């Protein structure tokens, strides 16, 4: 996304799109667990969390389309964009892996999103503030859900501990991107519309580290960092996710329930 020369409105559309894409893509990933989770309560839990995220995404994508002013609807943005036009972070598109990988991703993302929405609900843009204010308590449930599982698996059996640690190792390289700003977000943050993600890092690290300590797990030190999701560069698995998510809409244009 080229941001240097854009006026204020496209920046806002771009920011809403980032927030919406994060929620949409993670919601889609969590939906993949339905009927595959280790127990039926988790089928229900992950579907519920995915549904909350989908609800956020619908409002955010609708708003992005309105601000853009080119007549694109939430469905156009979700189902008719190609991979390079999505601006979600790479963490949310990572394959589910085993349940521990998903819980590691959930712990980190919900911690980040809770810190983000807790600030964004007081932001200068009324629509973004309303979405965040609506979602912030839902996301607190998401974080608590992931926390309980990370504690149980980390401080559980030798095997559950090993797999939980492997899950944390798997997602750690994708965290840096969550907390890295750029021109778009800096410009909007200066106006009080966006939240500078860098500012969220200490709070998120403190929470996650406390959970990992109690769970007898180690915070990995990554040897590399993913980057590029916010400018449309994604990992290999994302194309497969889009193919599944967009297939029905593209094969049957205009279909509705």
């Amino acid at each position, binding site marked *: 996304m080229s941001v240097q020369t854009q006026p204020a409105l496209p920046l806002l559309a771009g920011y809403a799109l980032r927030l919406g894409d994060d929620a949409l893509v993670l919601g889609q990933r969590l939906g993949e667990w339905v009927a595959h989770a280790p127990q039926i*309560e*988790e089928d*229900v*839990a992950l*579907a*519920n*969390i995915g*549904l*909350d*995220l*989908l*609800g*956020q995404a*619908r*409002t955010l994508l609708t708003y992005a389309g309105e601000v853009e002013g080119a007549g694109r609807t939430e469905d156009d943005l979700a189902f008719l964009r190609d991979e390079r036009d999505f601006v979600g972070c790479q963490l949310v598109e990572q394959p589910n892996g085993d349940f521990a990988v998903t819980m590691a991703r959930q712990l980190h993302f919900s911690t980040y999103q809770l810190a983000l929405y807790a600030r964004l609900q007081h932001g200068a843009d*009324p629509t973004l*503030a*309303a*979405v965040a*204010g*609506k*979602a912030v*308590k*839902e996301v607190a*449930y998401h974080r*608590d*859900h992931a*926390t*309980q599982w990370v*504690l149980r698996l980390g401080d559980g059996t030798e095997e559950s501990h090993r797999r939980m640690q492997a899950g944390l190792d798997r997602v750690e390289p994708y965290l840096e991107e969550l907390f890295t700003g750029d021109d778009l977000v800096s410009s909007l943050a200066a106006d009080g519309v966006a939240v500078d993600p860098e500012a969220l890092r200490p709070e998120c690290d403190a929470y996650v580290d*406390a*959970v990992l300590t*109690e769970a007898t797990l180690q915070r990995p030190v990554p040897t590399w960092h993913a980057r590029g999701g916010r400018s449309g560069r994604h990992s290999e698995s994302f194309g497969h996710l889009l193919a599944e998510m967009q297939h029905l809409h593209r094969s049957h244009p205009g279909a509705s329930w």
Partner: protein
Amino acid sequence: MSVVSVEPSDTSLAEHARTVAGAVPDPEVPVLTIADLGVLRDVAVDADGRVVVTVTPTYSGCPAMDVIRGDVEKALREQGFTDVTVRTVLAPAWTTDWLTERGRQALADYGIAPPAPRPVGGPVPVILTARPVPAVVRCPQCGSADTRELSHFGSTACKSLWSCLACREPFDHFKAL
């Protein structure tokens, strides 16, 4: 919690519209009306009889919202209101404090443990570990407080799944938000 805003001359008409809209049952918990649930924010009727109903979702992704919008529109049309618009707002965000007393009682009678009121101001417990302080939720069947949560997440977005250790019955809890 819902406010009726009307032209002075249309008070009775607006009251009627408000009563009709408010009586629409929640599609997922049909013992509650949308007025009991607190998702009906406003019913306004202008001088030409146009009705604008404002609703708000319980949860961001609540799939019942489309059905509620459709049901409200249908109920009002059946009562002769031909021009009906249902709009959705997110702010101020719904909380379980918007449930009416009647709604709480209806939930309990139906076998769903109602949410505890949220603490307003005053001292709050300081949580020193990542494990939250467990809430006391009474079994709607036998009234026992000897219950445990099976899952934060239940059959709908607004409920969690619990089990009573006294009467051994599972039950839903309308969780505090």
